[in-house]
């Protein structure tokens, strides 16, 4: 009896040693999603992660942690151990936390595992709006100062960046900026006529455009969009947009700095494989996202460029709480 017990214990001990010697991951990985369930970040992460789990041979338990423009989630991962068992699944917002006075940390405290995709910004208008294109909209604003209601999602959000870009390129536009909780509620308000024009991510507006519930005005990109080829692009409307474009919100998976290299490598390889999955690529294309699938130095270079351009654009528009200079964010060379 006791001998049996001892041998059982020994066996248990052995298997435990085997388990620790096993490669990463040996337990569940916690994936902290910065935005709420059902949003863009959430859907992207929940679509790609099952493929990454397969490649990794482990389980990633995803959890939405919302609040303070995603800063709650970011701080949670910063406070966790750098062992690769808590990863951040986020969007572009943290890159502006410092200048917007929303927090002391951004992605510089993280190693990018994969920057999966980039969204394209565009302007959409209410069907009843008295113009059908970008030139018409500018003319309307000039003739009716302070009349056009432009949707917004708070400082640092996509609409604020696009509005700052338009103000820089076209000169100050006299419009009313009406703030909403996100592009979903704002696009709803647009269809109800509470606002006239909304700068939104293409993926969020595409179904509404297809159904004829709203009309596309301008796409903020340097190349004609494959999903909406007939819509004018910003650089055609005004060549000065080229300074800031291509620009767009992005989605990425991040691990805290100091995570062991082999863990970073395992995660990077898994997500790189997952991002090549056909189902995922189709899903992203259907929503008008541009695939990126970059990591390492390439991802860091992208993040730096994104942060410099956007932070200074907002600073020039007088929307920041602190100058990018204070945080060592260099002004981009034009």
């Amino acid at each position, binding site marked *: 009896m006791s001998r049996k017990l001892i041998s059982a214990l020994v066996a248990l001990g052995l298997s435990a040693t085997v388990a620790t010697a096993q490669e990463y991951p040996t337990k569940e990985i916690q994936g902290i999603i910065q935005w*709420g*369930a*059902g*949003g863009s970040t*959430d*859907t992207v992460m*929940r*679509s790609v*992660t*099952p493929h990454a789990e397969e490649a990794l041979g482990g389980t990633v338990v*995803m*959890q*939405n*942690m919302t*609040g*303070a*423009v995603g*800063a*709650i989630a970011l*701080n949670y991962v910063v406070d966790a151990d750098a062992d690769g068992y808590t990863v951040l699944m986020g969007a572009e917002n943290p890159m502006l936390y410092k200048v*917007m006075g*929303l927090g002391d940390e951004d992605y510089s405290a993280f190693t990018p595992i994969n920057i999966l995709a980039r969204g394209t910004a565009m302007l959409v208008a209410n069907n009843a709006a008295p113009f059908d294109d970008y030139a018409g909209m500018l003319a309307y604003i000039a003739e009716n100062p*302070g009349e056009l*209601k432009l949707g917004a999602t*708070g*400082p*640092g959000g996509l609409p604020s960046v696009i509005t700052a870009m338009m103000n820089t390129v076209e000169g100050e536009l006299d419009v*009313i*900026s*009406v*703030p*909403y*909780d996100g592009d*979903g*509620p704002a*696009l*709803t*308000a647009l*269809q*109800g*006529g*509470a*606002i006239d024009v909304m700068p939104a991510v293409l993926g969020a507006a*595409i*179904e*509404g455009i*297809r*159904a004829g*519930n709203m009309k596309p005005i301008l796409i903020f990109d340097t190349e004609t969009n494959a999903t909406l080829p007939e819509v004018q692009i910003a650089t055609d409307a005004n060549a000065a947009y080229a300074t800031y474009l291509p620009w767009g919100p992005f989605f990425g998976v991040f691990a805290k700095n100091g995570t062991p290299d082999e863990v970073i490598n395992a995660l990077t390889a898994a997500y790189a494989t997952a991002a090549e999955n056909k*189902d995922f690529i*189709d*899903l992203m294309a*259907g*929503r008008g996202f541009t695939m990126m699938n970059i990591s390492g130095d390439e991802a860091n270079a992208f993040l730096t460029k994104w942060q410099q351009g956007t932070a200074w654009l907002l600073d020039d528009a007088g929307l920041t709480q602190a100058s990018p200079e204070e945080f060592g964010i260099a002004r981009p060379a034009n």
Partner: protein
Amino acid sequence: METLMAIFTIFTQPQLLLLVGVGTFAGIYIGAIPGLSVTMAVSILISFTFSWDVYPAISLMVGIYMGGVYGGSRTAILLNIPGAPSAIATAMDGYPMAQKGEAGQAIGVTTVMSFFGGLIGIFVLAVAAPFVADFAITFQPRDYMLLAVLGILLVGSLSSGSLVKGIFAGALGIAIGAVGRDPLTFTERFTFDLRLMEGGISFIAVMIGMFGVSEALQQLQNVNMKAVRQKIDRIMPSFGTVKKYLPLSLQTSSIGVIIGALPGTGGDIAALMAYDHAKRITKKPKVPFGKGAMEGLVAPETANNAAVGGAFIPMMTLGIPGDAVTAIMIGALFIHGLNPGPMLMVDQPDMFWFIVGALLMANVFMLIFGLTGIKIFTKIVEMPRSVIIPLILLLSIVGAYAVNNSITDVYWMLGFGVFGYFMRHYGYPLGPVILGVILSRLLDDNWRRAIISEREDLGSFFEGIITSPLSLTLFIAVILIFVSQTSIWTFAKNRLFGKAS
């Protein structure tokens, strides 16, 4: 016609039927546990059902949603802890009934009426979805604001006793709801530069603390009192009872469908508004409201289940979520390769009819599971206080932690529990606090949107109200309800009608 047949898909495939059943059963018990919300359950399911076909995945989610909205009433009636925000109003008359030994009857009526409300919601979804959606979308920020004001006026009917104390409690609730980073400008409000305050105070934590913990503390005063024996002979409400409340439940179901269909308002507000409506139109309740009035159970329970069908209306016709759960379902449809949006009805009409069928089935399962096991559940109330008080505390702590996996929420919850205990002690009603927290954002955000849209000009703001029929109706309703609660009204009524009679 062929697409209409998709409504029967659910009945022809036993596997789907089983999934709806399992979902509804799970939903009832998830809904009953405070802090474990339907929203959470459905969002976990998204990853879980990733590799499934879309029909089974939706079947399970629909079941959980329907069951969960109903399940919240269980703990509200038995323990005075609403299992979900939409069951707050249920607690106000359900719990007093349980204390009188009528828990079985309360659950029975709740179940049958939830079924009835659910049915109306589904019916409206099936026959009038495009019309209701078009109507819902015309609500402007100022209309949402007026709706919130209308909600705030419920303070009067939620406060038994002193109206002044009720107003104080409501104002406190609005202030609690404003804590944290303002979602429109990200400015910090009432945060005192503390990082933990930035995210605001969890509404669920306030709710669980105020209802659950304060109730437990209250009961500590008479631990040795014998629990009330529960009458369990009359669980199923008689046909006469159902018939008696039919006109009321039709009205409150309509409130539920409309409020549910509005993007940005859901079952919680619907239930509170329905409760208020019942209180207003019921001239002579057999039992006073707040002491166990049957009308006080019928109204919120029909409304919150009708809101389920309502929430699907903008989701299916416009791709706009009616509430948090439908927002996640839109995400789920997307992950399953569909393009949720206004074109879904055109591209995949069978999906619409399939969901209608699934909802219908979930509603039937809810009735079946809801009416079984009541006898065992009512035993909870018969347990000695020394057992039930720790149970309430444990449930409250687990519930508060589960919302965000945050221990801070537990501290908030306990703090508000103690605070709520003293509020009760000094005769301050707790209902208005919760009402204030729920309506705080709706009122604040939409007032600001409305006034920003008018370039901060009050003149054109009122011009907008008067020129829009919808706003004008709401505005007149606000004024009428407000005036009817003041002494001027009673005075005028006596002068006008008093002489005549």
